């Protein structure tokens, strides 16, 4: 009697402890549905600068299956440069598209035509890629599913093979436990399970994998507690999202949503019977039944699941037989994109927090439509991985990159470090590093906004320059190459990034004037401007520098950098619309002139290395290097994209790279594969081009072929001189 009482007390105490754990742990992660995050859809229209490879990649990424003849949605047939596609219906920021039949033909790197089922020219889109599932408030990226989204066959198969009495028991099946115990005693070891789904959930969720009697006991108590506190649907949903289905290096594959992606690279709701059966079969031992390593074992296990489905009557024998004749259809590991885009998802999470009410974000199952462009993202990732491996195989250097739409500020790619798919310190958003010469365009913008005083042809003074800072201190800016060039035209002073000339110009204009120009570009330091800030002594993140250069790229119009196109609630209703915003921030005419100087940077200045590869693209850009080569920057743009690349060390020790030796190459690699467009022509109406001799400060006749041809704000050009003869140009030799 006493012994029985002690046992009861012990069991009771154990139950209370475990029950407390169940409540605290399980309740916290109670399956609030995460927000689903989507990329841009892929727009297809005649004339689009797009290669067939990009379409093929996108189709693969969203799980379209290549077939001979597309008979169902989500299938496509490719013959040469022609794709016949049965598109899926989808929702998007602007409402989305219905399912359609389309035919897309390419001519080289361009879409030659897009036709609908009736053969009429049309616009079409392929649905966006789901890039992440996030809890807006939490740093977690999992592919969670709701019970009602789980295919019926999946539940059938799961219950048929793992727990046929799931809906009847209270967490444990005493008879099964007894049977297992007897088998175990006979065998002298634990060989038989007999666990209910609830017990398995308890095991997966709370406990380690060791097989002891004590563990089985705890597991059973926890199962009882789970059943006591939660209903069957909640338990089943948690199970679907917790079950262990594979191991990808250090990452364990939990849940059927991720499992479907890991094994088939498709959304769970698209899997067919034989694929569902394979996933369910994996539960017993994902490494033993690994369908890539041991296809035969996996097949046998799959067929057992199919058979057991037929036994329960969920499917008939013919269906089971037909499914067991199918191949495994597991996709090779290298074709699976599992990790999504952590740095981009991080930006989405933060901007959700900034621009939306927390109460709105608490809703279940939000859909977040973003501007992520998988093609731009891939270009940025490959550029960083490739260049960093080459520049620094040992791995001390870090890097970050951001690409955005030049006109709308839509952020299309973010890379937060050289391990491009790893979450962690997001340098694109958080590494606030000295920007060096990336700040200079603000100085020149401030000057060129005063056309009566400054034009691109104004001679600036690049001789040594000492500034008395007071208190016995002085500042003498040095040039990167250690030389001083004397007088040179303003356009060259910026293109060649002359420190002495730029600092002198900034001091002549006045710090407040330059500060105002920096403010116009959205790059003003939080403190008042110091002289050294004229050369970029203040810190900024790659994202912030992209924002500053976006204003230049759009001809003086600021569009806030945004990752989010729109957020819909579960019913497809938009939360507050995140519409396009632009604001005139800097005078378009002066920006046009700065852009011309930054084009000169690429033609003959510090970014000359890009002149060849980008000869026909008319890009503009600026190198940035900080003291002792700690930071290597490049920011640049064409008429479509604005992008920034940064390389440096996390500990801020010298990286040993100038802007032109490091970040410039990353930038070039990521921009090269992207479609090009000519620079903004905003402000062009106020501009006139003239041939000039900057040294004499004279405008020359058009036929003077060796004279410089430069743009001027109308009326600011120098006085005319009919004489072509120019003095010998002092062209500095160093880039």
């Amino acid at each position, binding site marked *: 009697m006493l012994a029985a009482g002690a046992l009861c007390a012990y069991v009771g105490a154990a139950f209370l402890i475990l029950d407390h754990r169940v409540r605290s742990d399980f309740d916290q992660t109670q399956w609030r549905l995460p927000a689903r995050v989507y990329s841009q859809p892929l*727009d297809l*229209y*005649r*004339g*689009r600068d797009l290669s067939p490879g990009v379409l093929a990649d996108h189709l693969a990424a969203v799980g379209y299956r290549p077939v001979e003849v597309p008979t169902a949605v989500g299938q496509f047939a490719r013959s040469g440069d022609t794709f016949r596609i049965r598109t899926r219906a989808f929702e998007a*920021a*602007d*409402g989305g598209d219905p399912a359609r039949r389309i035919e897309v033909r390419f001519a080289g790197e361009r879409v030659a035509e897009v036709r609908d089922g009736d053969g009429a*020219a*049309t*616009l079409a889109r392929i649905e966006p890629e789901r890039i992440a599932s996030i809890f807006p408030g939490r740093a977690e990226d999992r592919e969670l599913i709701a019970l009602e989204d789980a295919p019926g066959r999946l539940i059938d198969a799961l219950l048929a093979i793992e727990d046929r009495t799931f809906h009847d028991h209270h967490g444990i099946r005493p008879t099964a436990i007894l049977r297992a115990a007897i088998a175990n005693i006979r065998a002298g070891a634990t060989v038989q399970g007999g666990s209910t789904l609830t017990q398995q959930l308890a095991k997966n969720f709370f406990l380690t994998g060791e097989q002891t009697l004590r563990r089985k006991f705890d597991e059973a108590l926890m199962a009882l507690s789970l059943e006591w506190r939660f209903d069957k649907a909640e338990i089943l949903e948690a199970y679907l999202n917790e079950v262990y289905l594979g191991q990808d290096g250090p990452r364990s594959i939990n849940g059927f949503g991720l499992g479907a992606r890991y094994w088939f690279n498709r959304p769970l709701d698209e899997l067919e019977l034989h694929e569902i059966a394979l996933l369910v079969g994996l539960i017993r031992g994902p490494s033993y039944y690994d369908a890539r390593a041991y296809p035969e074992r996996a097949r046998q296990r799959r067929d057992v699941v199919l058979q057991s489905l037929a036994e329960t009557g969920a499917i008939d024998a013919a269906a089971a037989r037909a499914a067991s004749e199918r191949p495994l259809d597991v996709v090779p590991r290298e074709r699976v994109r599992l990790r999504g885009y952590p740095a981009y998802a991080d930006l989405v999470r933060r901007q959700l927090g900034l621009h939306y009410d927390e109460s709105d974000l608490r809703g279940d199952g939000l859909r977040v439509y973003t501007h992520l462009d998988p093609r731009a993202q891939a270009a940025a990732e490959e550029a960083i991985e490739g260049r960093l491996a080459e520049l620094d195989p040992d791995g001390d250097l870090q890097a970050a990159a951001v690409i955005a*739409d*030049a*006109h*709308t500020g839509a952020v299309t790619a973010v890379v937060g470090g050289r391990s491009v798919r790893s979450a962690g310190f997001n340098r694109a958003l958080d590494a606030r590093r000295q920007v060096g010469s990336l700040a200079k365009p603000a100085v020149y913008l401030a000057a060129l906004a005063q056309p009566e005083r400054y034009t691109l042809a104004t001679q600036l003074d690049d001789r040594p320059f000492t500034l008395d800072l007071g208190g016995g201190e002085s500042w003498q800016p040095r040039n990167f190459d250690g030389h001083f060039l004397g007088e040179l035209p303003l356009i060259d002073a910026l293109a060649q990034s002359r420190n002495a000339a730029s600092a002198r110009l900034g001091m002549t204009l006045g710090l407040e004037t330059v500060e105002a120009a920096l403010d116009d570009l959205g790059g003003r330091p939080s403190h008042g401007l110091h002289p050294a800030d004229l050369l970029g002594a203040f810190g900024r993140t790659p994202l912030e520098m992209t924002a500053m250069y976006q204003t230049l790229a759009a*001809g*003086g*119009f600021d569009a806030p950098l945004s990752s989010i196109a729109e957020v819909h609630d579960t019913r497809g209703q*938009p939360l507050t*619309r995140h*519409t*396009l*915003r*632009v*604001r*005139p921030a800097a005078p*378009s005419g002066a920006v046009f002139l700065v852009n011309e100087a930054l084009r000169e940077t690429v033609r003959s200045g510090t970014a000359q290395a890009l002149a060849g590869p980008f000869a026909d693209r008319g890009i503009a850009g600026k190198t940035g290097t900080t003291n002792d080569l700690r930071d290597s920057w490049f920011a640049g743009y064409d*008429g*479509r994209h604005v992008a920034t690349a940064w390389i440096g060390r996390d500990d801020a020790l010298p990286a040993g790279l100038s802007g032109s030796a490091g970040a410039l190459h990353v930038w070039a690699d990521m921009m090269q594969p992207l479609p090009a*467009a000519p620079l*903004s*022509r*905003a*402000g*062009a*109406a106020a501009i006139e081009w003239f041939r000039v001799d900057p040294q004499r400060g004279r405008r020359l006749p058009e036929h003077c072929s060796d004279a410089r041809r430069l743009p001027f704000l109308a009326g600011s050009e120098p006085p005319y001189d009919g004489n072509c003869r120019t003095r010998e140009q002092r062209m500095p030799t160093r880039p």
Partner: protein
Amino acid sequence: MMIPAKARLKLRTLLLAVLLPALAGCAAMIDPEPEPAPEEPAVEEPFDADGAIRHTVDNEAVAMLWEQSEEARRNEEFRSAISALERALQVAPEDPVLWSRLAELQLEQGEHGVAENFAARSNALAEEHRLLRYRNWLIIEAARDYRGDDEGAREARLEADRLREGS
């Protein structure tokens, strides 16, 4: 935000006067024989005769999206109308007519600040497109008017008048 009915009417009339010739140019890309405009514009002779507004759409996609947007606008689905134009901007980001039309749609949505900025964006791209700039200044005038910025509205009106007189 409520727009005073009288001001709204005035704006409509003015916009239609300069818009319709522009839109006809755009629609012509899709349909070789465009339907006659459903509403006769309140013609102010000099602009109609000028014919300087030509939305030369050499891009099929932009033309199709423009049509989608117009359709949505006729059905008073302003969100869709805006979305279609934003999509068109992806194709032709510096098309001043698209920016101007977006400005107008935003004005109808009561987004006066956005409307004014879009009109300014259109102006920066419109170069010699005098009538388009005229129209943009009318949008700016209306936007400032609704915001109670009388001085700003007057300045915008002066700009518009200057363009109207062809200077």
